């Protein structure tokens, strides 16, 4: 199963990131041909850039994997209202740490990508919404923007053209839900980040201040620069059809070399990632489970067999190690590649405790706006916490599953799914461990306070 040749990284986004001679200052960026694509962009018509992005097939790197070119096409350009561009730098999905690298190590790449995108959609104002915890990242970006402004790469009359677009950094206040684009927009407007109902509040039509707005992930916006450099047509040949470009995978958990690795989409399998790239598991451990795309994606069991039909009609029959790392691979086995956060769990992990950890996160981060997610996420947390404290009951596995099912598909935003999918998949894949807890624990209903 394990290949002898370790697959080679192909770094496009993180090309310079870990070069010890490379700095996040504009001088260094310019020396490495920086902002040449912005100059190129200004020789093109805005819609031509959109066409290139469309041709490139680049999909959103924030989690949902929606084609970026398509998103831009939905933009309401007839309303006459100003258009806004927002970079979603609220990277908070447990297991994901890719955007942080870009912003810390190569901020000008993001700024260049953003200004190209802003010009392409004719944005009046651009924002980087960065999570509160990235205070260093925010500082670096602010310095970088000041440098870029000085060189006229953003601000008024960019590169002597008639196009002006300011770029500002807006820091969040510490809420995961601000990564949801309409929640982010509410937060940017200075309100509680309660996600908006869709319809009618699709950002491309009624976004920031009820104006047409595009919200893209950091990595996605960086890709815009490379689409221009490589050309949409050529870019679409990187990776696999419908899974174009590279992806930065963030591997965490019990492997020898956790970290971020940039590969062409589909260039390697999950097994190759774990055993070749990340050096395998810790000594004496065996693989138990993998969460392939951040904590909200459904967990995969190490001894599962996955079979079915791919989108192109070919049959597949995979073990966990055969799953190709791209957008469609994890999706075709019932999970998702999400934001690229691969979490590896070995045989020392207690699945109920892992579940309790994830549930605690979602209970803490639910905005509390809509009923199922607000009450369900805390309830699931309370159940799993109680189970870990020795008070598990026989019916708890079924109850957890039922609560999760009552959340999924009934909430305003996708947080409901994010909170429900882990529970649904943990129970489906590791029900025995949940039942085990009841057998070994007190197995008494904690009725002391109803």
């Amino acid at each position, binding site marked *: 199963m394990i290949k002898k040749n370790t697959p080679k990284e192909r770094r496009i986004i993180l090309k310079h990131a870990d070069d010890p001679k490379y700095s996040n200052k504009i001088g260094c960026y310019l020396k490495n041909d920086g902002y040449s694509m912005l100059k190129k962009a200004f020789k093109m018509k805005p819609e031509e850039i959109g066409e290139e992005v469309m041709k490139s097939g680049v999909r959103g790197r924030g989690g949902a994997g929606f084609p970026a070119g398509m998103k831009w096409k939905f933009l309401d350009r007839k309303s006459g209202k100003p258009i806004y561009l927002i970079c979603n730098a609220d990277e908070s999905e447990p297991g994901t740490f890719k955007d942080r690298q870009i912003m810390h190590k190569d901020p000008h790449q993001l700024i260049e990508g953003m200004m190209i995108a802003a010009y392409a959609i004719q944005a009046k104002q651009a924002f980087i919404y960065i999570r509160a915890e990235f205070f260093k990242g925010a500082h670096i970006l602010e310095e970088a923007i000041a440098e870029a402004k000085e060189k006229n790469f953003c601000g008024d009359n960019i590169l002597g053209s008639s196009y002006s677009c300011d770029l500002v950094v807006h820091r969040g206040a510490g*809420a995961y839900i601000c990564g949801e684009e309409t929640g982010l927009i509410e937060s940017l407007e200075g309100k*509680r980040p*309660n996600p908006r*109902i869709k*319809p*009618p509040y699709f950002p491309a039509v009624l976004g920031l201040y009820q104006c047409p707005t595009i919200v893209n992930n950091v990595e996605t916006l960086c890709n815009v620069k490379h689409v221009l450099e490589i050309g949409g047509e050529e870019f679409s040949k990187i990776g696999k059809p419908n899974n174009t470009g590279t992806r930065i995978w963030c591997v965490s958990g019990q492997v020898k070399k956790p970290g971020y690795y940039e590969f062409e989409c589909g260039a390697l399998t999950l097994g190759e990632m774990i055993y070749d790239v990340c050096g395998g598991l810790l000594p004496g451990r065996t693989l138990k489970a993998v969460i392939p795309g951040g904590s909200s994606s459904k967990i995969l069991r190490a001894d599962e067999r996955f079979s079915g039909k791919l989108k192109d009609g070919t049959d597949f029959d995979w073990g966990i190690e055969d799953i190709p790392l791209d957008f469609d691979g994890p999706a075709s086995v019932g999970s998702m590649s999400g934001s690229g956060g691969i979490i590896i769990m070995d045989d020392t992990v207690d699945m109920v405790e892992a579940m309790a950890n994830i549930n605690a996160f979602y*209970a*803490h*981060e*639910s*905005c*509390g*706006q*809509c*009923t*199922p997610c*607000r*009450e*369900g*996420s*805390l*309830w699931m947390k*309370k*159940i799993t916490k*109680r189970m870990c404290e020795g008070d598990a009951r026989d019916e708890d596995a079924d*109850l957890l599953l*039922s609560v999760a*099912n*009552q*959340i999924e*598909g*009934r*909430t*305003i935003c996708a947080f409901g799914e994010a909170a429900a999918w882990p529970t649904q998949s943990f129970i489906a894949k590791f029900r025995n461990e949940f039942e085990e807890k009841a057998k070994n624990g007190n197995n008494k*209903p*904690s*009725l002391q*306070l*109803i």
Partner: protein
Amino acid sequence: MSSNGNSSMITINLDGKEVDVPAGINIIEAASIHGTEVPHYCYHPQLSVAGNCRMCLVEMGTPMRDRGTGEAILDQDGVQKIGWIPKPIIGCGTNVSPGMHIKTNSSMVKGSQEGIMEFLLVNHPLDCPICDQAGECRLQEFATDYGRGYSRYVERKNVKPKRTKLGPRVTLDDERCILCSRCIRFCQEVVDDDVLGFVDRGSFSTLTCFPGKELSNNYSLNTVDLCPVGALTSTDFRFKMRVWFLKESPSICTESSAGCNTLVSSREGEIHRITPRRNDAVNDSWMTDSGRELYKQVKSEDRIVTPHVSSEPSKLADAISSASELLKDQKLAIVGSCRSTVEEQYLLTKLARNTKAKKFLRGHFGEDDGILLSSDRTPNLRGALATGFSVKYPTDQLSDLSRALSKGQFETLLVIGEDILESGISQDDLKGVKVVFLGTHKNQTSALADIVIPTLTAFEKTGSFINRTFHLQSFKQAVPGPAGLLPDLNILSSLINSLSVDGDQSADLAQIWKQLSKSATSIFHKLSFSSIPSDGLQLNGEKWSELDFVEKKALHFSPTKQLQEA
């Protein structure tokens, strides 16, 4: 897809039945028109859509079309296929479209409703026996109608503040709050007083006032009505009365010319609260806090309950006959009231005609709040115009009367409720003038009157008012008046009958309206009291468009437009 040739109506399929509904309304309203309840908490027809309670989840499908060609996709029978959305959608935030299919009772919908009910109750205290909302609580009702009937929750419930004073009139129990945000939206959108918000997040979200702010606006008690559960309570009403003991009578608020539609809740003849009654042409679903306090006048200490003749208590019949003696063949002036009903003003006009009396009217004015408290602080100024009691727009002074009195033009004064000593008449003016006072509450004028005849408050009688938009609205007696007293109409008709030759004036509303509606030039032409709908009747007030009405632009009222529209 329009039906009946009416382009504003569309046909949808509701639970398997084709029904016609107005285009552009949401699923909750569309279903409600056809008698189907879609349960909801956060949705309110007069507030923006929040979509957060998720109680109104329904199944929805639309006729399928080919994405490329736009052509209808048909099944084997040639019927257009329905593309059902795999997830339930919210009925409040989804507008109907032609051919839309809706299921409100499928297993998916029932499952959603059971789930939402369970979630709403897991952290909700089960203390209905001591909760003020019991009996009118949506949570209770929907738990019975749509819940599972048992709880699977064995964890500790969240603890939140139990009795927060949000303002002078509203007390909040946060543990009962289901975070529907109706109160927040009301304060933002209707009152423009953004003081409420949530703090903390997730299940620990807590409703509160922003630091340094309080919920003290004159509409704060509407949040209590809006609250679907027992979280927001009226400090005045809480723990005083079980709502199922209360009798609700439709009434009209007499605070100002806005004419809010109300419900007066009483038990055994005693009023316990006043709440707004929905009327989309007048007050939507709101009323002022100050208007809710008016019932306290019914039992107030300065209420007149005993007739007096020459400062001596007397029987009502004796006081009326003494009054007619006093009014007979005298130079008489009548000071009417914009607080009297249309019918009373009509009789008073007739009395003035029969006795050749001069008519005077004063108004009561205050600040206009631009919503439902208008600067005209009387409920029926336009009634006085419409019945012909006054042709002039009144001021708050009776200067004409003062001048006439000082010239000795009048020997007797009949005053309806007003305190003329507060309106530019001095004690000296009244030297040698006999005063008959009809009213509900004591004032300086009643103190010096020769005859005082107690009358009834709007809560104790039946009648009609015309509000600032010339909307004619009737109200019914909610509680009986003090023992031994008669409605104003009976007193006025007695006076008319004893003072005129023909003397057959009836005190019956139907009879009075027959007379009122007789004249073809009257705005009451062809109307009758019983034909006034529960939500009132728009009259044509064009005749008075030259007058300078004092009301400012407000909810459903615009000073320049209103007369043209009417």
